[in-house]
């Protein structure tokens, strides 16, 4: 007996439980940006597990250590650049208030 209209969404008086796709993306991006320093700290703490020359042979040569640390550093910077670009794109696509205000705190 019900008309086809009855199956549609309820009236939009209540805010939806789920965010629309773009805000959802933006929030996850902010989460990722928050996680970045922890990723960096973990990566940069990793060399502490390497054997050093006090144990005799098997010490890591300094050039490899340098390479590793600068590679981590560069990767961090690169990810930060990408976040910056993504954040700007998402906020300009929104076309409203400055991005910092829209992001979740």
């Amino acid at each position, binding site marked *: 007996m019900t008309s086809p209209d009855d199956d549609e969404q309820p009236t939009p008086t209540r805010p939806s439980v789920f965010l629309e796709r773009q805000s959802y993306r933006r929030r996850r991006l902010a989460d990722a940006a928050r996680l970045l320093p922890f990723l960096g700290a973990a990566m940069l703490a990793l*060399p502490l597990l390497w054997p050093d020359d006090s144990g005799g042979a098997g010490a890591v*040569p300094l050039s490899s250590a340098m390479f590793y640390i600068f590679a981590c550093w560069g990767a961090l910077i690169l990810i930060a650049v990408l976040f910056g670009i993504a954040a700007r794109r998402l906020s300009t696509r929104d076309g409203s208030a400055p991005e910092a205000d829209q992001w979740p705190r």
Partner: protein
Amino acid sequence: MATLNVLILVCLGYVVLLFGVAFAADRMAAVGKGKWLRSPLIYTLSLSIYCTAWTFYGAVGNAARSGLEFVTIYLGPTLVMVGWWWGLRKLVRVARSQRVTSIADLISSRYGKSNTLAVCVTILAVLGGTPYIALQLQSITLSFSIFAEADPTGLYREGSSVFWVATGLALFAILFGTRNLDANERHHGVVTAIALEAVVKLVALLAVGIFVVWGIAGGLGPMMDRIDASEIGQWNVDASRWTTFTFLSAAAFVCLPRMFQVMVVENDDESHLRTAAWAFPLYLLLMSLFVVPIAVVGLDLLPEGSNPDLFVLTVPLSQGNDGLAVLSFIGGFSSATSMVIVTAMALSTMVSNHVVMPIWLNTQDRPGAVPGDVRTIVLLARRVSIAAIMALGYFYYSLSGGGAALASIGLVAFAGISQILPALVGGLFWRGATRTGALAGLSVGFGLWIYTLLLPGMDGGIIPHSVIEHGPFGWGWLRPQALFGIEGIDPMVHTVMWSLLLNTIAFCLASLLSFPSPMERLQGAQFVNVFDHSVAPRGWTGSVAQSEDLMIMTQRILGPTPTQEFFQAEAERQNGRPGRLPEPTPGFLQRLERELSGSVGAATAHAMIGQIVGGASVSVEDLLAVADESAQMLEYSSQLEAKSAELSRTARQLREANAKLTQVSMQKDAFLSQVSHELRTPMTSIRAFSEIMRDTDGLSADEQTRYAAIIHDEALRLTRLLDDLLDLSVLESGQVSLNMGDGTLRAVLDRAVSSALTGGGATLQVRRTRASERMALHTDLDRLGQVFINLISNAQKYCDAAEPVLTISAHDVGGQMVVDFVDNGSGIPPDAQSMVFEKFARVGSDKAGGAGLGLAICREIMQRLGGEIAYLPGQGGAAFRISLPLAYQQAAQ
């Protein structure tokens, strides 16, 4: 070989260039040009004052001594910048919304604008900053001495060069750091000059690095081999130092006064942080890229025992590349100058705002009445502070002799300034942090830092050697470098761990145990929830008379023109009438305080306004007022609710009235038709019988008499009806004259019953209790009888019982005669009960009878007589009650 004279010329030329750039930038900003001055690039480059001469020269020396450990002091800031989403964003927002001028101002602002805290932080910053400045002076002097060694003229004297360097730097800082007062008007000149210096030192270090890798080592591959083959060629890092230094540099990056100055105070736009989040780590990476190669090549090429701190200079010199050496010298020079200038600016702001101004304010009874310009006093205080700080640095350098002890002072300063961190982070993220907690944490951390690091590190035995060895009074667990008996920790790690740990514990404990003042709680909410609301706490109340005092005071701080503009804008905002003084509303006072705090700091501005307005800042009442906003809204909504309830009640009453009106109107219509009908029926028969009598001949006398009698009866009926209508209209208009008389109820009832029952079917049985009817009345007895007759004849007409019985009972109720007429019929239907006393009301229009005026007339009569008639529901049949004051009661009145 470059002579010393050439070098000095180059230095002077460089300084002149800096002056030029700073001056041009200030001019451009003043005329509103030069948007690039506020670009993220300039902001990022200005952050590079983190890289001082200590890092420019010292990083290579550090690398030559302990390999990759130097990189930690760059990794900490990198992590902080990359994680700007956590802390820096909030820090910048808070600082901007509170118009904070320095780190001391921020801390003091957060903890209820407490000046004690501001002074503590200032002392800490000065104690940590002075040796740091001395370190910069040392680096410049050392680099001079390298060139002087090779200079044949030999005119170089170390002491005087330090003096002149210090003087020059102080001059520069004074000229460009104290041009304007408002910290929120950025120091564009200085910032631009710093950005230029950032480029210079980066280019210099990169140039030396490239020269070393491709000019000396012969490419990347050979360089790597050379690194691995050198004495530092293996990964050998102390884990505790690595993590501690990374953490320490991250903490210092946020807490250092100069970093706070460029990163937070000079910040133009929060979105610059987003760019700096990757650009500044990139800058740091480039700065540290060639540090290890330079160190390795220096260790290879230079003779044993040469100072590795100066490899950046000595390596190019040893290869005969004088141009590169001079460039490198300029790089180190610019690192030192930018750091010294900004540190001096930041420290002088703190000293003048939190030490000099409060003292000056205390010496004044009424700041509004003091002659002279407060602005000049503040500026003078700042200039003197800069000079004093530079002098302190110079003396520190002279006293310490510029020895190796200075080399570690950078980290020592880091450890000292990091003691602010718990109070800062706690203040930003924890509303429960209190002033007492911050003070406790700061003093514990500060004391431990002095006891475990600063004093033992000083040459000259401020702490006796025995104390370091065995602890004070022989208490082993208090040994400065092995607290609680835990030995074998690196002194730096030892201090950082214990001081920050105990600092944090003291901070948290004291915060938990103490109770914050209203101001602290307000500010705490403002800081922690800065993204939710950026409104300052209200708290000032003033009178109009104070506006003038305020204006005089403000003029002395902001200068006449900006003050007048500010006050006029405020007056316009308040009442649309510029040209008058604005009312000192709380909102205005709060904006004014913000404006002033941009110049002299939050605590001082608060105190100054407090002195004029009356000192009452935030009371519990104000707090309650803030909190009451929600309560007021609740109250308002409940008022609305009450109003709406009242409205709906009125609406219901209106609806009822309307329904009654409609009913009355319908009754009127019904009555009109009834009256017409009643009038027409007798008229018809009168007309018909009179026509018969006129037109019919030969009527018998009998018939004539009968017809005439009918006509007469009908005419009587008409007269009765018209009498009733007339009677009612007379009663209603109040023109009735009462014929007052004395009698008893029994007599009246007797007459009424007998006259009502005569002529009727006489089937109605009336029951009375005559004994109770012996009541004396003083009233219009005929009118009262009319009412009784009406009621009895109504019962006779309408009582539908098989054997109708009317019970009449009389009582004396408190001086009122009450007579009830109750019959045993089915009564009046409930929906008609409210209408029975209305005119023209008739219950059931099918019943023959009167025109529905009887009860209406009764009601009017009873009102005239001072009594009333009412329908008694629930008596089994139709029941009416008549009440009337008794004779004695009336006489008593």
